[in-house]
């Protein structure tokens, strides 16, 4: 672990109205590794993930205390430019949400926003990103047709490519394979394993086998608290906490 990780959370508390959803979270996310958040439904793992790029901003009644440092900057500081934080992270949600435009425009959307207007340059970016997610050969002949016509698995890879096109440092995955068939799931998993060479990846998953296949580190979240954080095999095979033991028991048997 480096001394200055991309993401460092310090004493983070989050409230939905009166509901204390995240309790005193402190964690340094290891750079260029896959870290999985596991835990039962409603434990706060997705909430925690979304605090990293401030996706709670559009909800009323959400109060955040504490710090989330991204590259040393507290993203909850007043006066921080939230678009600049978000650009550093790609997000894959549970279901793919392609933008209502063509395949090409989906990938070019981010670069265009951040100032790339040159058609040639955009074409290079689009091709590169589509190749990176192994989608190029499948779509190269219909780049200008609507992205919604792709299969769900292809859409999810498109969304990944779209996120990568703004050159983030971090990839957030919120159960990114939960809507996909086994084959598409496998493709996404393979991509993530390739991508961790270049990116810091945080994955929320409720599939322990997936967490084991994919991650270098696991964070076990329960009832809004981090119960245990450690290297994958150690945490799964030799958990220190009773709660973790109970939760991973099903996985072992």
């Amino acid at each position, binding site marked *: 672990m480096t001394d200055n990780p991309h993401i460092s959370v310090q004493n983070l508390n989050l409230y939905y109205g009166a509901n204390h959803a995240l309790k005193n979270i402190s964690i340094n996310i290891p750079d260029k590794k896959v870290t999985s958040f596991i835990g039962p439904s409603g434990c706060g793992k997705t909430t925690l993930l979304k605090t990293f*790029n401030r*996706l709670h901003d*559009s*909800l*009323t*009644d959400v109060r955040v205390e504490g710090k989330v440092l991204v590259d040393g900057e507290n993203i909850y500081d007043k006066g921080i430019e939230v*678009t*600049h934080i*978000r*650009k550093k*992270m*790609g*997000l894959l*949600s549970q*279901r793919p*949400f*392609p*933008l*209502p*435009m*063509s395949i090409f425009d989906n990938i070019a*959307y*981010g670069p265009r*926003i*951040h100032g790339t207007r040159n058609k040639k340059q955009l074409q290079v970016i689009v091709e590169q990103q589509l190749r990176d997610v192994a989608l190029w050969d499948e779509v190269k002949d219909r780049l200008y047709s*609507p*992205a*919604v016509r792709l299969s769900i698995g292809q859409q999810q890879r498109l*969304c990944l490519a*779209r*996120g990568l096109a*703004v050159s983030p440092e971090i990839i957030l995955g919120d159960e990114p394979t939960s809507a996909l068939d086994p084959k598409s799931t496998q493709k996404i998993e393979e991509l993530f394993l390739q991508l961790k060479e270049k990116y810091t990846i945080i994955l929320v998953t409720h599939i322990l086998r997936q967490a084991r296949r994919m991650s270098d580190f696991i964070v076990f979240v329960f009832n809004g608290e981090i119960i245990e954080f450690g290297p994958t095999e150690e945490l799964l095979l030799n958990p220190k906490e009773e709660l973790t033991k109970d939760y991973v028991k099903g996985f072992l048997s």
Partner: protein
Amino acid sequence: MRKLEENIFKILMIIASALVVGSFFLIVFTIVKKGLPAMNLDMITKTPERGFYIGKEGGILNVIIGSLYLALGSSLLALLVSLPIVIYINLYLKTGSWLGSVTRLSYDVLFGIPSIVYGAFGFTIMIYFGLKASLLGGIIAVTLLVIPIMIRTMDEVMRTVPKELLDASYTLGATRLETVKILLRQSAVGILTAILLSFGRAIGDAASVMFTAGFSDNITTSLTDPAPTLPLAIFFQLSSPIEEVQARAYASALVLTIIVLLISISARILTKRFSKNKI
């Protein structure tokens, strides 16, 4: 027994559907049957000439043009007011904010106000500004009438835009203003429907234009000219005891129906084209 129940309700539903389809055809049939004899090229290419209202030469070109001006003007004006409102409540306000609820309640109330009240309200505004019955006055009253329709139709569509789709745009570092594009593209069909619905309502409403738009036998050439409208033309001609003039009322109704029908059909066609990118 349950099978019988199933069948009874199925028959009731079929009857209800038949009623709607039937009345549509009956209305069209009546208008065509009564209006077609009075329908000729003069009717839609000429303005009223001397003695038009006792059954002599002329047509209702002035009325058609007045109605189109009025409906176009008020739909555009209403769009300019409504679009920022729906974008604001759907994109800028947080989910569940009180300002959003108050706005939604207000337009729901306005939606239920009868058009004669808008006419009267528009009339008061005109008197205040010293305006005479004119195209401008009519546009103001009808705009007030269609704004709630427009907002409601657009808002209902925009509320169904998944939050995750907007989040996808934010995640890429887009600002709210940049994300407006995504919201508009995803709800393009709804916006189009709202415009056409408002246009249809605007062109067909009599009560709101009665005091505000006035009537004249000349083609409207400026905002301060009176703007004759189809619903009022139908009303005046139908009140006449002369048979030829009454037939012209039905011919006018036929023109109005055709315009509204054309709008509905183009809405259908455009809807298909606009929804191809929609998720």
